[in-house]
């Protein structure tokens, strides 16, 4: 009987009109079912919080993973910017390439490049990076080529100091560990002493590498049994991890010279210092200040200072070469319009292993830049 009544009431509830059904349902929701609904609401909030936590954890982990890649991306971006800058300075006669590093033994001294003869690459072409010399092309295929890096035993370019006072031949430094990537500058005349930090560039002798490409900086002198020559330890200008994006220069571009390419950044800072010293506005301000002092009767500072205190030129830089030399003391390379008088070839220079060369061309001798007008009695030294 109860069962029948339940069936009837259930069917009746199913057939109730909305006006009767809704108030009954509302009354049940607000009384009997209400605590159960609150329990369900809490459970739903817990579930959604747990799902949000999962999503946030995944998102946070993804962000953390991407953040770990940012330094590498920034480094690569910076390198590519420098490579673009080098390309704009070279102007023509080069092809960009990617260095394809291998994992086999011996791959630390050779590297495969992503371009070959199809792109105009030829054997013995110089391979350069924004920081300086990387190596030279050893073998060429249509689509790829292999280059010798500076650590290869057969890679021995002729080098000189940045001011052209010391010449020598580059050799790899035979050592284990981190020092294995260093270089040696051998055969430097005994009277030509190089200070630590001196820049060593290609000398242009031999005809393979044009003059002026940075090779490395002097780390120290190595004591050898040779009493007539010095050997210096160099840190390569291009660290091994940075050999990724390089440029291969053509023979015509090498012959045209690259003297000012790797020194333009330094020349820019020198030029800015000169420009600041000669800035018309700063000179005007100084003149007004001097006139005011003169009017007040202050005679102790009647002469113009070299430059405004806020825009002083760069301080004098200690020249790296201190030993007496047979050639006239050259200055740092800053002036692109200076003439290059020929000088006598340096003695006892071993030729590099790539190509025997005709009589070497003279290293550049650049006179110092003229002082800005209106500032007399001031000597400008240009940072190297």
């Amino acid at each position: 009987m109860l069962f029948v009544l339940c069936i009837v009431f259930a069917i009746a509830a199913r057939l109730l009109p909305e006006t009767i059904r809704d108030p009954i349902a509302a009354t049940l929701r607000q009384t009997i079912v209400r605590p159960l609904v609150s329990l369900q609401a809490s459970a739903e909030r817990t579930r959604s919080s747990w799902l949000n936590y999962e999503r946030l954890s995944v998102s946070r982990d993804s962000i953390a993973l991407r953040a770990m890649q940012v330094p590498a991306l920034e480094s690569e971006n910076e390198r590519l910017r420098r490579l673009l800058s080098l390309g704009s300075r070279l102007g023509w006669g080069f092809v960009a390439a990617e260095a394809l590093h291998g994992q086999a033994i011996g791959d630390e001294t050779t590297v495969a490049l992503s371009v070959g003869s199809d792109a105009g690459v030829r054997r013995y072409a110089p391979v350069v990076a924004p920081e300086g010399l990387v190596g030279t092309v050893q073998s060429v295929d249509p689509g790829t080529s292999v280059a010798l890096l500076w650590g290869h035993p057969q890679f021995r370019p002729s080098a000189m100091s940045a001011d052209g006072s010391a010449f020598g031949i580059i050799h790899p430094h035979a050592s284990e560990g981190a020092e294995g990537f260093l270089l040696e500058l051998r055969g430097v005349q005994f009277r030509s002493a190089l200070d630590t930090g001196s820049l060593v560039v290609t000398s242009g002798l031999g005809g393979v590498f044009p003059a002026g490409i940075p090779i490395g900086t002097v780390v120290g002198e190595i004591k050898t049994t040779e009493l007539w020559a010095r050997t210096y330890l160099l840190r390569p200008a291009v660290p091994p991890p940075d050999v990724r994006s390089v440029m291969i220069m053509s023979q015509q571009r090498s012959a045209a010279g690259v003297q000012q390419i790797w020194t333009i950044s330094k020349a820019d800072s020198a030029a800015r210092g000169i420009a600041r010293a000669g800035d018309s506005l700063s000179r005007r301000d100084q003149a007004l200040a001097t006139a005011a002092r003169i009017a007040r009767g202050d005679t102790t500072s009647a002469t113009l200072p070299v430059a405004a205190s806020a825009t002083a030129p760069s301080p004098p830089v200690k020249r790296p070469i201190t030993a007496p030399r047979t050639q006239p003391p050259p200055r740092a390379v800053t002036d692109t319009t200076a003439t290059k008088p020929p000088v006598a070839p340096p003695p006892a220079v071993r030729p590099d292993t790539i190509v025997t060369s005709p009589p070497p061309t003279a290293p550049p001798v650049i006179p110092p830049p003229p002082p800005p007008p209106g500032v007399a009695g001031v000597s400008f030294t240009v940072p190297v």
Partner: protein
Amino acid sequence: MTGLGAFRAALVFGLLLVLHYTLRPLLGWRAPIDFLVIAVLLAAVRARSGTSALLGFALGIATDSLNVEGFGARALAMSIVAFAASWMKAIFFADNLALNGFFFFIGKWAFDIIMIVVEQRLSGGAMVTQLLLWSPLSAFNTAVAGVVLLIVLRPVLEPSRT
């Protein structure tokens, strides 16, 4: 059924009610466990047929208040399932867990069939999919949960034969 046994049964009934409105939404499964059907079936085996039908009707109409469009459908399905379970309790709750699980499965599936047919909310392929795919899956989950609860709550529950 003694007073203590009734108290224990009421306690288990309340626990299953709470689980239906906490654990079920927390899991959020597509084929959820129906603790209300388990509660009705466990209560039906301890009560007479009419009382079981009344209990099923009350539980069903309370649940229907949350789904006004199908008001009365769950009440009808619960009443029928509870009455049938009480009527077949001698077979339903023989002391065999697999048999108990099977009848949990049948009870939940029958409940879904009656409710979906009476509610008339689904039609065509959606109704067939619900009846032949999701309802059996939900019934299977309900059966597994029911067997686990029988094992866990066996010391609390007292099988009664009236």
